[in-house]
């Protein structure tokens, strides 16, 4: 004789099941459940269910993983690979908020469902006494069912049966456990299952490791991955310093590139360099565009030294001082190329022609703010 799981009762209409559930709840049964083919409004009230505490668990899980994620990102940004990206602070919190939000939702939802499957459905077990019963077939098509479990403290087979028939059930059955379900425990902690899981995890990681690190490099699968040539920034046993790349011969010049000869010699630049480009409209327009891009943040749109950096960086000086007016074009070109004090050199970002164009534009600005009498005519 197998073990009794519950007594089931079938009803024909939603109204009947609502009244029956209310009566079962009033009679003081606690371990009972209702199965209907579709959600019936008001059933939680009729069954006198308390509101579920599941939401609290979900938010606790979500917030836990959110904190872990926050710590993980902190570790990435500040400990493992500290690097400034895009001028952002070392710990760019606003950029991390979307990730934290999504981790909260994802872990909260997925883990709640997973934990419920483990605890209530007793995963990896996949059977339940109600499965494959005529009761389940009826309630999953068009009938409304109610079961009172044998573990209920008030359970007594005969009295439950007579009680169910008194509240209008048209079919009453006893439901027994299957043989293997009698001693059904949470098998997730069984050694066999745990070891199996570990074996699967170990096999998966090992095969991925072998595939990515060994198999790919075996002929004929290497697909020309391994070649007998020296690649850039590779180690070399041939050269003494151990670096595969060779440095170019001293004095090498790239094609189309003219080295700047006065790097350490501002006076030489001042005396020897002459502006090769005329101050015509094309050059001044180009100079204006480049000036507004590279120079104006510190020196101001009109070169008056009115920085728009709001004090976050030292203000650039005005370019209308007598000192700078008295400089030759070559000297201004030198400062643009090499920088001066906190100003960096711009020869890597601004081409030679553009630098001369900026010189022309600065001259134009100086003339514009200090116009002479003949300019007015």
């Amino acid at each position, binding site marked *: 004789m197998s073990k009794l799981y519950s007594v089931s009762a079938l009803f024909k209409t939603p109204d009947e099941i609502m009244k029956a559930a209310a009566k079962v709840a009033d009679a003081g049964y606690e371990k009972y459940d209702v199965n209907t083919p579709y959600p019936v409004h008001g059933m939680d009230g009729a069954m006198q269910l308390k509101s579920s505490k599941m939401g609290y668990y979900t938010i606790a899980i979500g917030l836990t993983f959110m904190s872990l994620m926050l710590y993980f990102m902190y570790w990435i940004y500040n400990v493992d690979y500290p690097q400034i990206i*895009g001028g*952002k602070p070392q710990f760019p919190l606003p950029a991390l*908020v*979307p990730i934290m939000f999504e981790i909260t939702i994802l872990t909260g939802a997925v883990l709640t469902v997973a934990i419920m499957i483990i605890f209530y459905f007793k995963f990896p077990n996949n059977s339940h006494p109600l499965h494959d019963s005529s009761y389940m077939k009826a309630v999953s098509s068009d009938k409304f069912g109610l079961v009172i479990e044998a573990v209920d403290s008030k359970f007594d087979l005969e009295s439950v049966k007579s009680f169910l028939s008194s509240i209008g059930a048209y079919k009453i059955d006893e439901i027994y456990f299957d043989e293997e379900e009698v001693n059904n425990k949470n098998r997730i902690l069984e050694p066999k299952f745990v070891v199996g899981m570990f074996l699967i995890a170990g096999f998966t990681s090992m095969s991925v490791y072998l595939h990515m690190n060994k198999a790919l490099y075996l002929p004929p699968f290497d697909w020309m991955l391994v070649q007998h040539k020296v690649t850039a920034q590779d180690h070399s046993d041939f050269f003494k310093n151990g670096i595969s790349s060779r440095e170019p011969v001293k004095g090498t010049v790239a094609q189309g590139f003219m080295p700047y000869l006065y790097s350490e010699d501002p006076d030489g630049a001042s005396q020897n360099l002459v502006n090769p480009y005329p101050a015509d409209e094309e050059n001044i327009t180009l100079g204006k565009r480049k000036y507004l891009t590279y120079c104006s943040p510190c020196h101001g749109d009109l070169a008056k030294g009115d920085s728009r950096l*709001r004090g976050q960086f030292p203000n650039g000086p005005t370019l209308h001082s007598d000192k700078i007016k008295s400089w030759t074009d070559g000297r201004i070109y030198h400062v643009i190329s090499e920088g001066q004090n906190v100003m960096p050199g711009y020869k890597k970002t601004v081409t030679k022609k553009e630098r001369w164009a900026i010189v022309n534009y600065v001259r134009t600005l100086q003339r514009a703010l200090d116009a002479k009498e003949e300019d007015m005519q």
Partner: protein
Amino acid sequence: MSNHDTQINYVRKDLPKGFLYYGLPLLVIGLVAAFIAYDVDPIRASFNNLISLLLIISVGLGAIFLVALEHIVGAVWSVPFRRIAEHQGYIFLVTPLLALPVLFHMHDMYHWTHAEAVLNDPILYQKAPYLNESFFFARSIGIFVIMSIFLFMFARNSRKQDETKNQKLSKFNAVLSAPFMIIFAISITMIAIDYAMSLEPHWFSTIFGVYYFAGTFATAMAILTLITLKLKSNGNLLEEINSNHYYSMGGLMFAFTAFWMYMAFSQYMLIWYANIPEETFWFLPRMENGWEYLSIGLVFIKFIIPFGLLLNRSSKLNPSRLKLAAFWIIGAHIYDMYWLVMPTYNHVSDTHGPVFGWIELGFVALSAGIILTVYYLAANKKNHIPIGDPKLKRALDFHI
């Protein structure tokens, strides 16, 4: 289901006296404060007037939107409150009175109204085809007229249905609300851009209209909730209305609290991340001179606290907790409008940091007085329930 012949037995029509006992004194105090404020400090007064205007538009226009929303989606649970939303929509009709003083002081508030400044400013010059005074007035008047016509048509059909029980009127309102939705979306974006965003005409944020709409929806819903709870306790509504109906109101307030945060954060994060001066300069004044505390406070007041107040299921079922949340959301909307508008006042009047005093309180009192008084005038001695609506019986049986 033909429920349209269900008779509504008893509806008490006179509103609770509290509307007038609180509304009239608040209105008088607010008006006196406003007149004195315009005499003492016209610029500050007009900025506060703008806050009141944005709040009243939220309450009134938001209510019209709620009516149209119910029609277009065929919502059932909200049918008993639709008449309250219609009456609340009449509050929109006083917006011209609030807008006029703002428009008289436009030159002190809106930089783009200065023609000579626009000529010398390439950005404003490019924006001039949209941001010019005549088109501004045309937009404002157009929005007001079109929205008022929609309000009158919704309300008239609904009132007519009380007597004739004609089901076709419901269908007609549903058809009417489809074009309304499109025009409303354009209108509220224009209101947000014209009145709030163009205070800093060089700044632009494409999400700004949605930002204002999120606050609008939550505020209109909060006012509707408060009026419903008051009328229910006074016996103006039917016995059948209970927590099942309140639950959805709380749910919508909760949803749009979260939606507001989504919009506000999207706007902030994109601008923070791109970090280009054309956009960040709008946030910079809100991060110095004491505004930084208000900016952080906005996150708590407008999002975290109401989110916590409404997160729990029981808080949406319990009228007294719902009332607290609704009051909080309205206060948070005023706070939000203050945060949007007042940094420009600093800029215009050469002051530093947030200002708060009797002028601000006076205009809040004025807004509250307008809401209570206009609602009383619109709704007293009228039916508070659309008794002719075919969905009413189903709505009363509604269960979450």
